[in-house]
């Protein structure tokens, strides 16, 4: 089969490339048109000047960081333990981490609200007060929801990382040198997982920072709902914010690309 450049390949490539670029370019040009007849960054200035912007953006970043911390605390020891000690539980754990693909965010938040807006009782004993009553406990619920959404990506990243480094042998080697569990996790496993953890964290970040569904229905002052609100009232600022958030996503993916180069890590999500 002669290997020549075909119009067929070019046609589809160009079509796809245009699909990538035109909306971005269009949005970018549009975002510069706040002042009539000239290109300016006025839309960006005005968007950033809104105190609500900084407030909600900060809030979402804090939530993202908390999500990443909780997700790591949950996933890393679990994945490690599954690899090392209970490999036969792997399908079960994997199945659970894939649940967000079956239970979309809108259904998840529906269930969370339904379950945690009243006291949680088991056999008539109240084990948890309603979580939606104070903003602090609602934030907790929000982070829990985000951790659920992050599970597929985080688990996959950590699992790939563990697979690549032969945990069993490393652990046994460390144990034979007299290391305890804490030392093993902290000094051996984590440093070797650095790029996997970073990519899982950044992917989680990309998903959480602009997240709308769960934040809206839990009524939290997050960046996603703020963006949606701006969209209803402004014309050019949303375009500016879309460009900014595309840039942020690009940054996150770029770093993942860099740290996982040649490791075959995938960076794809569901919405």
């Amino acid at each position, binding site marked *: 089969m002669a290997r020549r450049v075909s119009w067929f390949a070019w046609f589809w490539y160009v079509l796809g490339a245009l699909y990538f670029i035109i*909306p971005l370019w269009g949005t970018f040009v549009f975002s510069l048109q706040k002042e009539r007849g000239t290109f300016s960054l006025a839309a960006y200035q005005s968007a950033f000047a809104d105190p609500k912007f900084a407030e909600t953006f900060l809030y979402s970043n804090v939530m993202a960081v908390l999500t990443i911390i909780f997700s790591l605390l949950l996933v890393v020891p679990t994945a490690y333990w599954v690899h090392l000690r209970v490999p036969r539980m792997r399908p079960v754990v994997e199945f659970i981490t894939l649940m967000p693909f079956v239970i979309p965010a809108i259904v998840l938040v529906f269930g969370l609200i339904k379950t945690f807006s009243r006291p949680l009782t088991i056999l008539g004993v109240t084990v948890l007060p309603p979580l939606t009553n104070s903003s602090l406990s609602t934030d907790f619920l929000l982070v829990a929801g985000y951790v659920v959404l992050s599970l597929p990506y985080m688990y996959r990243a950590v699992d790939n990382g563990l697979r690549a480094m032969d945990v069993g042998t490393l652990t046994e080697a460390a144990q034979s040198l007299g290391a305890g569990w804490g030392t093993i996790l902290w000094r051996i496993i984590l440093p070797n997982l650095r790029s996997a953890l970073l990519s899982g964290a950044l992917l989680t970040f990309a998903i959480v920072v602009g997240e709308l569904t769960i934040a809206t229905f839990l009524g939290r002052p997050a960046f996603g709902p703020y963006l949606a609100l701006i*969209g209803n009232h402004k014309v050019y600022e949303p375009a500016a914010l879309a460009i900014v958030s595309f840039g942020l996503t690009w940054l996150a993916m770029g770093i993942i690309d860099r740290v996982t180069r040649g490791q075959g890590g995938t960076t794809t999500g569901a919405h």
Partner: protein
Amino acid sequence: MATTVQNPPRRSRLTWTWLGLVPFFLFAILFIFLPSASLFIDSFRTLDGGFTFANIAGLFQPPIPESYWLSIRVSAMTAVGGGLLGFFMAYALTVGNLPRWLRPVTLTFAGVASNFAGVPLAFAFISTLGRTGFVTVILRDLFGWNIYGAGFNLYSFIGLSVTYMYFQFPLMLLIMIPAIEGLKRDWREAAENLGASTFQYWWRVGLPILMPSLLGTMLLLFGNAFGAYATAYALTGGTLNLITIQIGAQMRGDVLRNPNLGYAMALGMVVIMAVTILGYSWLQRISERWLK
């Protein structure tokens, strides 16, 4: 679990081994299974707590079937459309013999685009194809073609589909590239050696081998679009009668006058998603067996 060879499994050891997974399972039970189960249970309850199938039956009363149907259509449309575009682009980048440098650039772009969804994506398309969007205006002023006059509307089925495609086809691209590269050179040469033309190779060998992962990934795209809420909400402000939008409306206020019917709606979604994912993993298994 006797994964440690030296020590005979003693009872205390056994318990400790399992204990390592307790936090994870506790979390999963609390924040995944309990909420889902409570939706599931109440879908089969009357308002005063009795058992009933009325809510499930209610799913077949207007306007709920229309919502499911619209969601299914949008998801199917973007899965097939995005799937084809993504597949052909992956084909172009792997066996199409395009310049090499295009590949890393395109892959990074696809990684970003497949994660670029929700409100900002809606904004981007409003700025581009909205009534005063960049492309709309260019087409109108430069080419004299008013796409809105011609029946296009960003805030409709077609507009939503075009928007969803933006994250659908890059996802397809990212998954199909390794799949196409999994086709062994020996298969192509064996086919050629037996007298097959390039077309015959693709038609009888290449495509059929890729088919499970092609269809499976399309199912994944289907689920991807089916569960989407944020993009649709930000784009149409809740005017498009998707099932996710319906559930959202129900959560905001009891528009169905029966919360349990709302739970049944969510249950219906989960069932459809589960079927999709089952189909996906089934096809995935076939594909792995072939491409191993």
